[in-house]
Structure formats: C-alpha cells, structure tokens
C-alpha cells in the first residue's frame, strides 16, 4: 500500500544539534559566549586585544581563535591577557560546532565568564554554521566599503550586534555611513551598532558596556 505521511519537521543539520549541545555546556557553567564574525582583516583580533585588558578586572575571559593554519591570533589574544585556545580549521573557511566542542574541552569552563570566539575571516560561510554561542557579532570595517550589507545579506541578517571598526579612517576613504546603515536597517531592523576604532579607542566604551551588561544578564539567568 502507498501512503503519504505528513511530517512538517524543520531540517536541522548535525551541526545545529551539536551547537545545541555546546550551548547547554556553556549554560551549565555560566559562560556567556559570543561569535565574532567578519571579513579577513576587519579587526576581529584587534577588537579582542582592546577588549580583554579593559574587562579583565571584572570578568574572567577566554578566547577561542579560529584560523586556517596559524596560531598568530591566539598568540595575540594570550598576549592581551586572555586564556586562549587555537583551532586550526585545516583549510575550512568557517568554524563549526564540532570544532568549538573540541576547543571547549580544552578550557576550564568553570573559570570563565565571557568566551569570545573569533571565527575565520569570511562573510559567507560562518553565517550558516551555528556554534552554540549566545550572540553573533559582526565586525564590519570602513575600508571594506559601504556596500557590504547589500552584498552579504545572510551575514547581516544573522547577527545580534554590529561593530563598525576603523572609523578613524572615515576622513580618508569613501564610505557613505547613511547608505551603509540603510542597508543594515533593511536587513536587520533595529540592530545594535557600535561604531568604533581599535586604533584610537573612540567608541570602545559603548561596546564594552554592552558586553559587560550582556554577560552579567546572561549569567544571572543561569545561576
């Protein structure tokens, strides 16, 4: 006999299931985790270098650095004072939940309040691979150009906060902030945005306040 069976079930891949496990592990240990995504060179590691020493007095920080082959970024994060774990993706253009799971196993999560994951520099693939982190943050930067929201909508739609880095370069490169923000608003209405410069420190306070607040709030929920 032939029969049609209605199913209606969301297609979740194995990665999403592992991401859910990572999330549970993080929550169990009261760790608040963010996934930093950006194109290569936007300033992910620079932002980590600026953030870590400024929060170190109040929060216990760890950094997981995704990189195709080197440990340069993890070394920079460690030099800034964070506990740092390097993941080499061996050619993959994004981190996935399995890689984060392996990195988490190397950390004493009980001794961490805030975990910053630096994803591989790429504006396409990381958006499709949930890691289990609580929030995704995109680091855009002025020299990349103001058309990026229009060209990489998937990335701009999938994040909970946006850093606009390298605002110190606004006088030197053509970047229409209105046009950029219009694209962002179209894709992700009301997105929280932090224009800043890792070079001059301008705008960093608002970012740090937000990160502090989010960490405390999440920890409160899971205590």
């Amino acid at each position: 006999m032939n029969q049609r069976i209605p199913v209606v079930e969301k297609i979740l891949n194995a990665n999403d299931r592992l991401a859910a496990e990572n999330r549970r592990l993080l929550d169990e240990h009261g760790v608040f985790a963010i996934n930093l995504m950006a194109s290569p060179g936007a300033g992910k590691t620079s932002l980590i270098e600026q953030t870590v020493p400024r929060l170190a007095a109040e929060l216990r920080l760890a950094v997981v650095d995704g990189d195709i082959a080197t440990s340069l970024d993890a070394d920079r994060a460690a030099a800034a004072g964070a506990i740092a774990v390097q993941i080499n993706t061996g050619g993959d253009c994004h981190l996935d939940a399995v890689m984060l799971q392996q990195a988490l196993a190397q950390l004493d999560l009980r001794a961490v309040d805030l975990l910053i994951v630096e994803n591989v520099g790429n504006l396409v693939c990381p958006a499709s691979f949930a890691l289990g982190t609580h929030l995704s943050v995109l680091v855009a930067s002025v020299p990349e150009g103001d058309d990026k929201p229009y060209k990489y909508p998937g990335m701009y739609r999938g994040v909970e906060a946006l850093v606009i880095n390298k605002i110190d370069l606004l006088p030197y490169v053509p970047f229409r902030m209105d046009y950029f923000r219009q694209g962002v608003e179209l894709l992700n209405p009301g997105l929280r945005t932090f224009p800043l410069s890792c070079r001059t420190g301008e705008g960093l306070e608002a970012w740090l306040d937000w990160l502090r607040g989010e960490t405390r709030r999440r920890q409160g929920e899971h205590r």
Partner: protein
Amino acid sequence: MHELPVAQSILDITLRHAGQHNARRVRTIYVVIGQLSSIIDDSVQFYWDMIAEGTLAEGAKLEFRRLPAVLQCQACGEKYTPLPGELACPKCESMQVKVISGEEFYLEAIDIEN
C-alpha cells in the same frame, strides 16, 4: 556548498518517520524551501543518492517546493514579493521592510510503501 549535512538531516528525519509507519520503502520526499533560505541546489540529490544507499530511502526522489519571499513595507503596509536583487517597497520605495515569509526550510511529507 554545504549540502551534505542538509542531505544527512533529511535522511534522519525521513528514516525516523518511515520507521514509525513500518514503511518498506520511501518513494518521494517533499521539502519546502523559502526563497530567502539557504541556497540549496541539485547537488543535494547527488549527496542524497550517496547517503541513502542501503536504507529504506534508497532511490527516493526529492521534490522541492519553493515558496516566494513575502515582505511587508513598514511605511505604507504594502505586502509584496520582491524581484531578484530588489528589496525596497515597490509602492513607496521605503527601505523599512519586514520579512513575512521566505525563510522556511522544512520537510513536509513523505510517500511510503508499506
């Protein structure tokens, strides 16, 4: 580009439901994809044929139903399906729009023999 894990998930769901209904064979699998959802193309069927081999779902056909995106203008309320590469409201040109649908990606039904 990342179709293999998707094919794997479709297979997991299919086999679970096929098992619950004592299926001998799965003939067709109906998948719904919104226009704004991740780009899945014919290579899913290719991976599918590979991973479904030796299971109840070997040889099953994947039928994709694409749903158009529906956006709603936050300025004038117009509901519309955008043309490729365009998102702004066709009536008032506002860029303040909300996605009503188009991000679906789910398995809708399976045809089995039992």
